[in-house]
């Protein structure tokens, strides 16, 4: 990778991180805590929605966020031709 490509790779990595971390904060601190009271007015399958986000929804979202991150990074690595991972050795 030349200097320009490096900068582009890093910029796109940071943008992906920013989007994912925003969602991370919105489901946990947002839906699970800050807005829990209005959300609790809505009840789905017996769960007040705010309570559901705090005890189920946020955890499920976290798993999805990491899944999106690893697949997007795989694509990004392939695009920039730095995906020859497995030959990489650990410190001698």
């Amino acid at each position, binding site marked *: 990778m030349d200097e320009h490509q490096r900068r582009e790779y890093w910029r796109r990595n940071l943008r992906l991180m920013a989007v994912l971390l925003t969602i991370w904060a919105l489901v946990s601190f947002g839906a699970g805590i800050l807005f829990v009271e209005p959300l609790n007015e809505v009840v789905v399958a017996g769960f007040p929605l705010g*309570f559901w986000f705090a005890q189920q929804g946020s955890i499920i979202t976290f*798993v999805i966020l990491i899944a999106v991150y690893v697949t997007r990074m795989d694509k990004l690595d392939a695009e920039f031709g730095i995906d020859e991972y497995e030959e990489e050795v650990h410190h001698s």
Partner: protein
Amino acid sequence: MSDIQTWTLVFVVLTFSIYIFVAYRSRVSTTSGFYVAGGGIPAPANGAAIAADWMSAASFISMAGIIAFAGNGYGGSVYLMGWTGGYVLLALLLAPYLRKFGKYTIPDFVGDRYNETARLVAVVAAIVVSFVYVAGQMAGVGLVFTRFLKVDPTTGVIIGMAIVFFYAVLGGMKGITWTQVTQYTVLIIAYLIPAVAVSAKVTDVPIPQIGFGTILAELDALQTELGIPEYTAAFGSTNMLNMLLITASLMFGTAGLPHVIVRFYTAKSVRAARYSALWALFFIALLYTTAPSVAAFSKLQIIEDVNGTALSDMPSWFNTWSEVGLITQADGSAISALPADTTVNYSDILINNDIIVLASPEIGGLPAPIVGLVAAGALAAALSTASGLLLVISSAVANDVYFKKINPQATEARQLMVGRIAMAGAIVVAGYLGINPPGFVAQVVALAFGLAAASFFPILVLGIFWKNCTAMGATAGMLAGLVTTMAYMLWTIDIYGNGAGVFGILETGFGTIGMLINFAVTIIVSQFTPKPSPVMQELVEEIRYPGRTELVSKHAQGEVG
């Protein structure tokens, strides 16, 4: 021997034999194998090992009970969100970059990126945090042996020590990792079977994550009747500010704990480190989404069974656990002090958080083999976490202190021997702490997250993402975060000062404030202190890109740094 004891013995002997077999198959002869399993663990296996390492006796035995009984129900969400949300931070901000950097331990990264003072602080912090934790695991092992096999806790802890000794000293990280994969399997089966059975029995929905929705309205009504805030009510036990701060403190603390971070060094590559984080959180989420349902079902069942029942008519689990003093009167005195015809009100009794999961098969009326399986699962959770922590202690002593400071010329064989001796020593100390737990262990474990958040997390993230973060900045930030957090804890915690604190912030949430202080101090001091060397700046640049890069390889060989 009762049915339950027989089945427990069968499962314990069976699982322990498997652990020993697995460990014998994966014994090691190199330092790289001992510290990081040669960096050759496939991602799903590494994820399962991280999950077992992470989910301790506290997650398996105590968490559902804490959700059900420590607050109103919603209050326990801080643990559910905090102990899983940290993995998003790990996956996105730390794991890939630390893996690319290479090396064996967190102090290694801190020392190489910053300086020797920072390395020393990191070594001490890693050892202290790990010992505090491991004592809790050993005590958990003792608890299970006492309750289910009726041996005394000391014998239980010694049996546990012997097993860990065998596979950790022999196999190092490789033995520990493959044993943890087995232990994860045991603990998740043991957790899910009773949860699914109870959910199917009570609601006809065999998926506990969905099933417990149908009983929440009933539980809310029951708690209102008993004069407790509704189970699902927001801020019934903790206010909004503290919910935010405690959740954040647990999240950032998770991302700063040495025994979790070190596991990403065992991955095969940067890509495998990312996938390890994904698998780890997936495996953890299986238990963490089940725990709140176990909490809700158990609480409903317990209130219905106990409230308004005469002592002579109590179900057998009530008597079993009140005999060993884990169910008491509200003032802590024994249940047996009451006349047999007393009618019990729910508010008159105190149920220990630790019994909910262990007693849940009995409470749900499940057969004896399942009770035995749960006991084996609890042991798996405690032993897997203990071994991971012991490895951090051993590698800190052998790699960061002995090899880096005392004898840099040591041969590989000699380093390995020091590692094994350190491991053996750590097991003995951990066993002692498990048998004679200092009274403050439980509190310190909860606080360890705040300390990790306030010390490690900011300097790791800044060290990776900000080339101009200086050694003096990081050291000042780490000390500022650590000192303010510890001072606040000492000031407010019951056993020390019991001060009121500021704005009603609980000591468990203050780590978040300490972390912000650390970030601020590190950034400000870095503006006025000498920049890192050009080589170091280039190195920090290189860890951003996966794949083989020249400078990182040279650094790993010790040629630059």
